[in-house]
């Protein structure tokens, strides 16, 4: 890669990181001071993507629009519970949108771990990834790692996360054995995880 290209790539990465940090700071500002301009900025960046995400699952445009607005209302009201040490802004938003989509389609909520469960096992000997890496930076690393995945792995991840298709449905859609779909997902998850961890050890 020549120097110019390298420069451009670095500038793009810096811009992504700046954007991610800005979205994180927006959430914090909404949560702490009901900052309307921070909400405006967050909304402008994400609302159309949320709508696209809902349409990806096969929702009609009008319903996707309505749900996207509702999800943004949840963002406005719940930003106070956003913890930047636990999740990047995009992760937090993804879980809200996914859960709202599940509620809407299924009529009951996603079953999740309850963090105040007496049975919750916390391994104190091992530092969590959250302790080791800035999460906005982690999501930059993940984004880069995703863009480097072989196309066939990116495709199954897209169908799964964005279209919300089960692995079985993806196999049917692509006319592949289910084992092939699963192994592509597995390889993608493993290589993205190893990128995150190798960066951790460098710092």
């Amino acid at each position, binding site marked *: 890669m020549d120097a110019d290209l390298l420069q451009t790539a670095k500038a793009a990465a810096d811009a992504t990181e700046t954007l991610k940090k800005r979205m994180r700071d927006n959430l914090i500002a909404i949560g702490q001071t009901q900052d309307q301009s921070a909400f405006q900025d967050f909304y402008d960046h994400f609302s159309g993507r949320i709508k696209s995400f809902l349409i990806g699952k096969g929702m009609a445009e009008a319903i996707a629009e309505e749900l996207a607005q509702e999800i943004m209302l949840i963002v406005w009201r719940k930003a106070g519970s956003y913890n930047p040490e636990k999740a990047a802004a995009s992760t937090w938003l993804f879980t809200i949108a996914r859960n709202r989509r599940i509620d809407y389609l299924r009529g009951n909520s996603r079953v*999740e771990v309850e963090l105040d469960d007496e049975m919750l096992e916390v391994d104190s000997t091992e530092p969590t990834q959250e302790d080791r890496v800035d999460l906005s930076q982690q999501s930059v690393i993940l*984004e880069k790692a995703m863009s480097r995945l072989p196309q066939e792995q990116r495709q199954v991840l897209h169908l799964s996360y964005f279209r919300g298709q089960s692995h079985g449905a993806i196999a049917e859609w692509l006319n592949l054995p289910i084992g092939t779909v699963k192994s592509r997902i597995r390889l993608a998850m493993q290589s993205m995880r190893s990128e995150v961890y190798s960066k951790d050890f460098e710092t």
Partner: protein
Amino acid sequence: MMPSHHLTDETLQEYASGALNVSMETLIACHLTICSSCRQKANLADAIGGVSLSDQDAVAMKGCASDVLAMDKSTPVQTQAFAHTDGLEAGIPRPLARALPGPIMELPWKSFGPGMKQYNLGSQPRKEGAFKLLSLDPGLRMSKHSHGHRELTFIVSGSYSDDMGHFNAGDIADLSEDHHHSPLVDSDVPCICLIATDAPVKFDGLFGKIIQPFVGI
């Protein structure tokens, strides 16, 4: 308690994507409760979902941010029904405890063979897969069987062994469709497991085929 059998990467990813049914979710959330390493992988799978969301092209919105702020003023805040914890059985991860109508030993268990009892938690049609508790007596060996698509087993208490190893309370067996196994209960108390499948179990032998319609797993 440190589990030694875990969820696969692809199951954690599918859980993050939101494509699984309530029974699979319940079982996965039970294991995540007591397994911090799978919980960490699950968080990363959510983060990848976030990246995937950011990666998309936006679709034009008809509404705008000020509409949302107006909605905030006009829509009452729904006070979330406080998730009660009274009467939940201790020693059982909450995702399962919430699905139980009463203490686990007092459930209306139904026998489906010598030393084998089951309690059905699911109400979905059989073709959608099973969601049930099994109680297997010490020393019991289950007939060799495989599963249509996938079976998740979470060990609630007791233990068993099969060709994949030894499974204790908190462990999860995350089996693919083509795996055939014949588990042996090796604890001195009954082994209670929570099972979720996305297709009915297929038994291999003649005995298995005869009991198949009655077991319904």
